[in-house]
């Protein structure tokens, strides 16, 4: 109880319970197609850069001790069907996980689902008031570009006599042999999305901490590049995502952000987050015609 009190005390002390942040993101309307994530596209030159402040995630334990990523730069454009968001932050080390005890660089952005006027609590939503999250990881991008790594990709010198699931002749088992193979990989046998190939970005719906659930189907894509101690990641999403968040041209909504530096063992609740929703306006269609 003392802990909760002190946490809330600290939050109240720096007035972090305001609904909105000082920054405001304007998604520029552009002609053409933004449905492909392109970190170096020309349209980014005209999109205003909003600096969003992040702090070390303060609510759920375990928490990071320090805010490794205090600032995230956000740009957004849309083409009336797709919203593209470019997220840039400093991270001294490229990390895509793979080995034991290694974690991936990652970024996430979230939108309210029920109401674009009054968003749910910023901490991943609340019961019956979900948020729609787009979660990119360097690890997921690697999956998309090179395929899900085999053990010999992760550990090139690994030597195994044989795996019981890698039999050539399924014999009388026929196609049912495949489910037999999965039994040797519990995560896959249970259909855990984590255990299958990723496509750069996960779409997640959450109703508070520890409730996130990866959604099937893809109305989004992402691509990131790391250079000179900086990540630049573009996540594109359909404006109208059935079962998720719905954005309208000329309308307003809110966004929240989180960043993980995998090289510093940030994963799960060890992350930097925005403590207030950032208002977002999607520029009207007539602006693009200008």
């Amino acid at each position, binding site marked *: 109880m003392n802990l909760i009190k002190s946490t809330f005390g600290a939050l109240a002390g720096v007035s972090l319970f305001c609904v909105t942040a000082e920054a405001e993101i304007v998604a520029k309307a552009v002609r053409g197609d933004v449905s492909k994530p392109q970190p170096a596209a020309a349209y980014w030159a005209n999109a205003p850069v909003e600096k969003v402040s992040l702090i070390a995630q303060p609510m759920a*334990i375990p928490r990071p001790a320090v805010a490794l990523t205090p600032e995230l730069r956000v740009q957004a454009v849309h083409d009336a069907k797709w919203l593209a968001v470019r997220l840039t932050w400093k991270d001294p080390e490229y990390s895509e996980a793979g080995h034991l005890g290694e974690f991936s660089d990652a970024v996430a952005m979230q939108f309210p689902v029920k109401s674009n006027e009054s968003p749910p609590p910023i901490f991943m939503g609340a019961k019956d008031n979900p948020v729609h999250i787009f979660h990119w990881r360097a690890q997921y991008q690697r999956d998309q570009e090179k395929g899900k790594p085999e*053990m010999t990709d992760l550990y090139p010198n690994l030597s*195994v006599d044989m795996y019981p699931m890698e039999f050539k002749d399924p014999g009388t088992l026929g196609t049912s042999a495949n489910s037999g193979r999965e039994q*040797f*990989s519990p*995560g896959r046998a249970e*259909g855990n999305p984590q*255990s299958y190939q990723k496509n750069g970005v996960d779409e997640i719906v959450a109703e508070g901490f520890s409730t996130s659930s990866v959604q099937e189907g893809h109305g989004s894509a992402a691509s990131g590049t790391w250079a000179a101690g900086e990540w630049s990641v573009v996540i594109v999403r359909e404006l109208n995502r059935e079962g998720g968040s719905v954005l309208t041209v000329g309308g307003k909504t809110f966004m929240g952000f989180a960043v993980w530096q995998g090289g510093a063992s940030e994963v*799960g609740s060890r992350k930097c987050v925005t403590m207030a929703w950032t208002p977002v306006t999607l520029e009207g269609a007539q602006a693009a015609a200008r």
Partner: protein
Amino acid sequence: MSKVKNWHLGREMEYPYEESRPKKQWAIVFDLNKCIACQTCSLACKTTWTSGKGQEYMFWNNVETKPYGAYPLAWDVRVLEKLGQQSWAGGKYAGKTIFEAAEPSERAVHFAPTDQDWMYPNLGEDDCAGTVTNAGDHIGELPHDRWFFYLPRTCAHCTYPACLAACPRKAIYKREEDGIVLIDQSRCKGYGECVRACPYKKSMYNPYTRTSEKCVGCYPAVEQGLQPQCVVNCIGKIRVMGFINPPWNARADNPIDYLVHKKQIALPYYPQLGLEPNIYYIPPIHADRQYLHQMFGPQVDGAIERYRALSKDPVAAGLLTLIGSSERILHSFKVEKGVARGFAEDGSPIVDVPVTEPVIVRDAFDEKLGTARYNTP
């Protein structure tokens, strides 16, 4: 944080969740005086559970040589070092547990092993504490000044698991029916918080499925009244699995309760960490006593004394003959007229074993068959 009762510590302690003891609690008792590190348990487990991709390095059951062996590398030294020096006052723990000593931002005092730490599961095997200085030296004192012992380990399916406490996804649960702690393979996201938090390092990350995995207590066997693979395959019959009650509900005819509570010869390891682990050890009688104090707490002297006197106790001797005599879980036992009897949960008999095997002496030459007898099988 909640106040929960931890009888290993003789006091209440802090834990993130409320006390919620299962209806039955899975437990194993090991006699460390008998383990020869043949690793049959490790291989029985390996072939049953961890032969898939990403599990190459995993030993949910391992046997390490103490004091120098450890899997992962130096897990015990590192977690004790993080916790810092702590003390017992009589039978009560006066120090802090890993939950109580944790920073407010963490669930438990911990260290995070890297892959290199897992890659040498048997480093330090048979390395002896103390030095052998002269050829032909012999060990002339008790306890021995040169010693090592083997420590077989599974997940302890703790009453207060650190893995469960640390999972921010709440993907780890403790089963009400048998106390087995499981990671939900459909919900785990592989954050590795359980790998960091478990001081015994019995949660392991699978880099192929990208989820964490751990000993499942052979729950499919337990559900059918059978003991786990590592227990039934033990060729030395040094271990027995059953269900333990807390001391206030102990039953003298329950094999585990008998060894842990009535005779008090089997002790939890590193109880000071605060997890109330449910694997219990009969301490090795010849190893260094200071080391055993650190590992098993202040009860260790009494446990060794009582173990030494065990041969004079026909009931205890009977129970020891029952260990390893059936693959079924013994819920109760009885020793009468030189026979040790084990029973199922419904009271039906499982196995009868003579406490003392009859000795039969036969001549080297069989007159009837006209042939010499050999003692080879």
